[in-house]
């Protein structure tokens, strides 16, 4: 073990960092004689190259919003293409949601026992009619031919694609005429290109259109957004087209996925949906925060009443524990593994405070016993820690095992709870073993 003095500095550093992360940004705050205080983490973070905003990621039950689990009906899709089709359906939803302007949406796909699913979480959106517009309809892929500026009146039509220049006309070719799209490589240049294969019906329509628009552009539109508008160099009669246009492999893949959304449309059925009004979420957040603070005060009073001075030290360790855990939650929003705070997560956090106290109680009770046997205070502190350690370790490992099972088998709520509890248990072991011990050693050592 390092010297207590060194550990004290580590603890102080951790406290400062945690407080820095946890403090909400404020502006022109007045506190007694001090006027116009300002605080914001962003400039400091930007200096070390972090541009994402630092904030707790709140779950739908606290922020309000809509969560929907959709099942993709794959009955008409050949099994080899089902993964592609699912991805395409996801991309379509993603595009629509982004266009609609939802902050921090989550759109995931999952395969559960042969079911293909899409899980959509839209914070702040509580109007089901809007949600249905976003995800309720299958994607429409249409082809628009360039006809010149003479038909400018078309541009005023509401069905006209948002980002397409004036002068295009919708053709009779659509997504159902497209059999499949895939990424290929040009044999001469080795550059990635997007390949289109049409159905026999589509082959005929496509041939007619390409004969008509040689030298002009043919735009491909998904829903109401043009995704590409390649130039038609020559009539294509065989039903196989290539779009080459200096894109990277990733760009080619994205375009392919978007095209497949039209070629492989999957009807989506709602398996599960949950809409939480914003006021309900906010009041849940307030109540659980209040309960957490109250629970914490209860513990402090109880510990000081039971163990006196030791209780004060344990309370300091607990406060630091709570600060570190909250800082981890908040800082995790900068990483891909962000912890989402939900109602059950807060319950898990409050419970983990209880478990953190337990480690302290175990140690203190053991110290009392050793002192009763006539050992000096210093010796009983060391013995208290070393003898309590095995039970702290074993009991916490079993809690961690339960949490891992929960994370594996649980659905949303359960998983949120388990993630928080597992983090809490790990930090609580640190808090009891390092923080409490260092403080005790400095005081009595």
């Amino acid at each position, binding site marked *: 073990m390092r010297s207590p003095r060194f550990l004290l500095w580590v603890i102080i550093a951790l406290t400062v960092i945690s407080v820095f992360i946890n403090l909400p940004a404020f502006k022109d705050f007045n506190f007694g004689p001090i006027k116009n205080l300002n605080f914001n983490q962003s400039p400091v973070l930007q200096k070390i190259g972090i541009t994402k905003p630092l904030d707790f990621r709140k779950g739908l039950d606290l922020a309000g919003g809509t969560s929907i689990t959709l099942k993709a009906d794959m009955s008409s899709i050949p099994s080899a293409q089902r993964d592609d089709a699912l991805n395409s359906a996801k991309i379509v939803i993603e595009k629509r949601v982004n266009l609609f302007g939802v902050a921090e949406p989550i759109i995931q796909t999952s395969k559960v026992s042969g079911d293909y699913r899409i899980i959509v979480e839209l914070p702040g959106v509580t109007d089901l009619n809007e949600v249905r517009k976003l995800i309720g309809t299958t994607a429409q892929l249409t082809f628009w031919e360039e006809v010149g500026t003479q038909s400018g009146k078309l541009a005023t039509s509401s069905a006209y694609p948002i980002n397409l220049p004036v002068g295009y006309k919708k053709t009779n070719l659509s997504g159902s005429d497209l059999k499949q799209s895939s990424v290929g490589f040009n044999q001469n240049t080795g550059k990635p290109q997007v390949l289109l294969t049409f159905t026999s019906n589509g082959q005929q329509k496509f041939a007619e259109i390409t004969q008509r628009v040689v030298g002009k552009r043919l735009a491909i539109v998904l829903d109401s957004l043009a995704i590409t508008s390649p130039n038609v160099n020559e009539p294509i009669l065989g039903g196989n087209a290539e779009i080459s246009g200096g894109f990277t492999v990733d760009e080619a893949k994205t375009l392919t996925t978007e095209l497949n959304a039209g070629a492989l449309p999957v009807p989506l059925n709602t398996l599960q949906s949950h809409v939480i009004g914003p006021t309900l979420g906010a009041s849940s957040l307030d109540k659980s925060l209040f309960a957490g603070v*109250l629970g914490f005060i209860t513990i402090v009073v109880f510990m000081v009443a039971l163990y006196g001075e030791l209780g004060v030290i344990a309370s300091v360790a607990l406060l630091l524990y709570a600060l570190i855990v909250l800082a981890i939650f908040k800082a995790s929003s900068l990483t891909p593994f962000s912890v989402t705070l939900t109602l*059950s997560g807060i319950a898990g956090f409050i419970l983990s405070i*209880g478990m953190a106290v337990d480690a302290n109680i*175990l140690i203190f009770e053991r110290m009392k016993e050793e002192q009763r046997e006539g050992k000096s205070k210093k010796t009983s502190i060391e013995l208290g820690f070393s003898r309590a350690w095995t039970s702290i370790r074993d009991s916490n490992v079993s809690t961690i095992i339960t949490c891992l099972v929960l994370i594996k088998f649980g659905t949303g*709520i*359960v998983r949120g709870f388990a993630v928080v*509890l597992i983090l809490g248990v790990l930090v609580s072991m640190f808090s009891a073993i390092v923080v409490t011990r260092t403080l005790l050693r400095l005081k009595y050592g």
Partner: protein
Amino acid sequence: MNIIGKKNIYFLISFLIIIPGILAVIFYGLNLSIDFTGGSRITMSFGQPVNDKAVNLVKSEMSAQKIKISTIERSNNLLFVRTQPIDQSQNSKLVNSLKKDFANFKEEEFETIGPSVGAETTRNAVQGVILASFLIVLYITYSFRKVPKPASSFRFGVCAVVALVHDVFVVVGIFAILGHFFGVEIDSLFVTAVLTVIGFSVHDTIVVFDRIRENLKRNPSHAFGQVVNDSILQTLDRSLNTSLTVVLVLLAVLLFGGETIRWFIVALLVGIVSGTYSSVFNASPLLVLWQELRGKK
């Protein structure tokens, strides 16, 4: 205090609590929420306390749209309605017509769960409990492998799990009774509560077992029952103090934490009290009982 000597009394107390619960599960069944059965749940607010007139109006609006109601519950300003699964368009139609009836009508929450998802949740919950129990037996067997003879680490594992199953029965049983008489539902939060109780119960049991392990090494000459009894008494302060802290925290959350997690907290409270009881009065005495039965052979 001689806990081991009176172990049969403590076992009896456990049975007296568990048996009514088991009977309730058998005869009344569990009041499963839509998380398991599938269905819809709508939380409505009217901007004023809910009266009978409002409830009847909601009922008639729903029957007009052929939505089958399972239960209606009210609390102050909110009305909770459980129905057969309804889809989003049915829901928006309902909301629109209710908005005409009530000036300040708001749909606070709307949840629909398909029956297949419900079945999946049930399967996951059961698998989770079984897997967690199994892993805990394995871990304890491993962690206590150096425990001196005649005790065996496997027995420690099994006894910890028996205590855990005891706690699951207590919580599920009490909620079967609450469900029948007060309409309390078992939802996925309840599953979380049960799994937490499992973790806490084992946590508690291990603290006592750890002391038994230590005392067995220290006093190899003492009788097994005596060692166990001493260990229970030595850890009793800690068991009570820890449980009391957690119970106090939970009470704080119960009183001020809002309605959404109320029954979740109650489940935790019941489970933690039961977990403390079972780790002191069931798990360790069971070790002694097992030892005695082996001795007679």
